């Protein structure tokens, strides 16, 4: 199956994928949308990166998308690549999976037998493998809209357009000055997206503070399992996991308190 092709085609060029048949789903235009419905933001699987970057409702509710999209690949990739392809590719370094995890999203998978809704938790089965079966299609991403939300994405890359050395997606839902709920997920520090549940646990019920975020960072840094590669050694990646967790949570708290969020970014 091919959507934007920005993950599949490179794999084919490198002979890592040798499909005999490729089904082009780009004509399923009705799968490209971002709308608010039933206290959820619903995003069609064929929505392109640039549409996520420019979306007004997303900027309002979840500015984390614009944070992430600004640093995903380059305009050429963003004009074509889709959120469905991103999640379905299930690359550990991929940014939108972490964003969706942090926002407690679920995905809708459709097949001959109808539709099912799967939480992000259950969606990623392992490296490059998801809960989507052979005869199924990812059709929609659903993100619950809850009060007091703030979210942010922080990433360090070697160069504009490169994949993350480490990236962290953070979401906070404040009830007054208390963290009612927290979401934290990391890219490029494990075999798949790392969902930092222990750090989330720590955050819940506490008052946001620099010390708390540093502590959450320390836990996230422990709980991830990066490997050394051309982007950096393990100690640096663990350090970044902590540092970026702090930065993402700090930003998310500021935004939650402000209640409003900066406008979308229109650069592509």
């Amino acid at each position, binding site marked *: 199956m091919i959507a934007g092709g920005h993950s599949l085609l490179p794999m084919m060029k490198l002979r890592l994928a040798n499909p005999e048949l490729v089904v082009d789903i780009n004509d399923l235009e009705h799968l490209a949308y971002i709308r608010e419905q039933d206290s959820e933001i619903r995003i069609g699987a064929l929505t392109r990166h640039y549409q996520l970057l420019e979306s007004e409702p997303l900027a309002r509710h979840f500015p984390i998308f614009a944070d992430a999209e600004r640093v995903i690949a380059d305009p050429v990739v963003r004009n074509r690549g889709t959120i469905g392809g991103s999640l379905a590719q299930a690359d550990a370094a991929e940014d939108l999976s972490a964003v969706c995890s942090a926002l407690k999203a679920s995905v809708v998978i459709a097949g001959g037998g109808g539709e099912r809704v799967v939480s992000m938790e259950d969606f990623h089965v392992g490296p490059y493998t998801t809960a989507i079966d052979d005869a199924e299609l990812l059709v929609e991403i659903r993100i619950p809209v809850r009060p007091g939300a703030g979210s942010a994405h922080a990433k360090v890359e070697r*160069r504009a357009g*490169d994949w993350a*050395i480490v990236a962290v997606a953070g979401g906070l839902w404040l009830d007054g000055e208390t963290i009612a709920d927290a979401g934290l997920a990391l890219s490029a520090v494990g075999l798949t997206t790392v969902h930092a549940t222990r750090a989330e646990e720590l955050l819940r019920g506490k008052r946001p503070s620099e010390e708390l975020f540093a502590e959450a960072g320390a836990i996230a840094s422990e709980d991830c399992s990066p490997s050394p590669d*051309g982007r*950096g050694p393990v100690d*640096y990646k663990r350090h*970044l996991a902590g540092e970026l967790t702090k*930065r993402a949570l700090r930003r998310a708290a500021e935004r939650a308190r402000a209640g409003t969020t900066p406008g979308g970014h229109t650069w592509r």
Partner: protein
Amino acid sequence: MATTTAASPETPIGYGRMKRKEDARFIRGQGKYLDDIVLPGMLHGAVLRSPYAHAKIVSIETSAALAHPKVLRVITAKDLETLGLAWMPTISYDSQAVLAGDKVRFQGQEVAFVIAEDRYSARDALELIEVEYEPLPAVVNARKALEADAPLIRDDKDGQTDNLASPLWEAGDAEEADQVFAEADIVVEREMIYPRCHPAPLETCGMIADMNPETGQLDLYNGNQAPNAHRTVYAQVAGLPEHMIRIMTNDIGGGFGNKVPVYPGYVCAIVGSIVTGKPVKWVEDRSENLMSTGFARDYVMHGRICAKHGRITGVRVDVIADHGAFDSTAQPSKFPAGFFHIFTGSYDLEAAHCSVKAVYTNKAPGGVAYRCSFRVTEAIYLVERLVGELALKMEVDGAELRMNSFIRPEQFPYENKTGWTYDSGDYEKTMREAMRIAGYDELRREQAEKRERGELMGIGVAFFTEVVGAGPRRHMDILGLGMADGADLRVHDDGRAVLSISAQTQGQAHETTFAQIVAEELGISPDKIEVRHGDTDRTPFGLGTYGSRSTPVSGASAAVAARRARDKARLIAAGMLETSPEDLAWEKGRWYVKGDPEKAATIDEIAAAAYGEAPLPEGLEGGLEGQSVYDPPNLTYPCGAYICVVDVDPGTAEVEVRRFIAVDDCGVRINPMIVDGQIMGGLAEGVGIALMEVITFDEQGNCLNGSMMDYLIPTALECPDWELGATVTPCPHHPIGAKGVGESATNGSPPAIVNAVCDALYRSHGVAHIDMPLNPARVWAAMQGRAEPPQ
């Protein structure tokens, strides 16, 4: 963005910021590159490459590939041996396997060549060739290659018992250096690596070879930087008559030295055409380009610098040059380390000494690209990094220390401690101009304030002296070919002119710059001057474009040829005006009678007369032409002052180049806009090399940067708005005072950036040096006190 103004007045014809003549075709997508060319009946080649860095070849089985319905031939070393072509000479008097027969010596080495009806089939058939390898231990580290138990790489060479690629080479005076260092107030010692990087031109390398079996004429379509010299090499290697070989380069999508060497793929394409009697096209892919073609640098340098009474007094360095498996650098024969002599920098030293050891490793050959094998980049990086560290340790300002130590204007021509004669310069003026543009004192104040707040801002200074325009024939040759360049100029009877040159543009805009040179000399509008290059049948002999030599050598040739045409025009004009040549004076575009300026012949009229029916002065033949083969009397020595401002993120160790000020003195600027373009491109390359570009290997010799996902080149987002400036100190021995600028910025920018990062981190973190590339992980390690050289 601040931009340069030329110090010479801009004139309506000749010099000035005219738009590039070649761009009309490029921006319309009408450039013609190698892969655009399709010849009737053309076949396609593909190269099988070694997966191992070092392995014996036990057997090569090609029958399955030959059985592929679209495959015509599979060529291996055995086939080449029968033609005497299994090995070829490199430009450095070494030998290189065209196809490996005995063993492979680097990952990506050429093992077999498949010729098929189409490109896909050729590539598919590679997988049908079975090669049995017996892996051998590999060595990819230059130091380890020198250890006694290191595997011997070049066992093909008679008498070779170690991995030394050439005898130890030295320059300067070691004893004098001992003394000056002993008497110094301070000595700084530093081991530094200029890591292996790659120029990664947008267009990869390739060739179409077309041998006509009837006539014996060999046509080669191949984007290379020195077509005339390549033709001579092919003639020698293949034993073909040189005049029966024609090389056509067409447009070239970037060279940067990567298109200087003769690659095995080229020879295979030629052999392929000879054995099939059809044109054979071979074009490498991106990974082949990154993994097997001319890399740059890979210099391990142990440097020392000393100062006394606040002045730099001595520099010395011991180098291990890593050549990879074959020495295929392209320096002039007498200079095995190129022009590394220039490590004495811009300073009036009391002593200097260097030694260079060259070694073989199990890595791709090259060392030729990105400021060529002339090793000026390495020399400038060494000295400017040493001065940077010296300033930190002396706790003095880097700009001040340099200005205290500069060669002074009145000392030119200046003979440096390695015996080279610098032509001209006013270094302090150039330095001060950069400081003025930067607002240097204000920057230092800002830095002090930020330090108080724990912010990491750095200001890096580099002052370089370049040495370009190789070179005087009495000293310099490449494979026995003198380094002169020809220019043929013909002014047609309609007043238009054609200039044929041996220099070879790869984006430098020769079609514009060279037209401007002739325009200035003859007073013909540059629009009416066609510059021809890139076809050995239509151009004079000369050594081509690399080492920033086009304007210093070929440009001089063009000016001399134009002056010769102008001299002849004077004789013709004298006849037309019925006076003697001595009574004529020149102003751009016309000869006129001294004292009677109304009485004149314009160049258009003279051109018409040169081919007309009216009689010419006695003894004069018709036509208006000028020819020159220019042998430069000396090299030229451009210089520049660069100031870089960086911010380092204390939490993530990311480096941002916030400002970059570059003041270049390349002598007279022919087209200041084109000069700016050359500088901006070089600065961007410098950002790439300093911050992200590197070719590394694992212990087994696997190349870890064989694609654009792993070999990062900079984007506009990593580059600040360049702030350019100029001073103009004409070259005293060049006909129009120009010095060359193509590689200045690539040389000067990396040390400025590294100096800036060290300036940001020295006081807070004690970091006095980090080897490039300064990517976040490596900078962070240095901030933790664990800086390491790249693998």
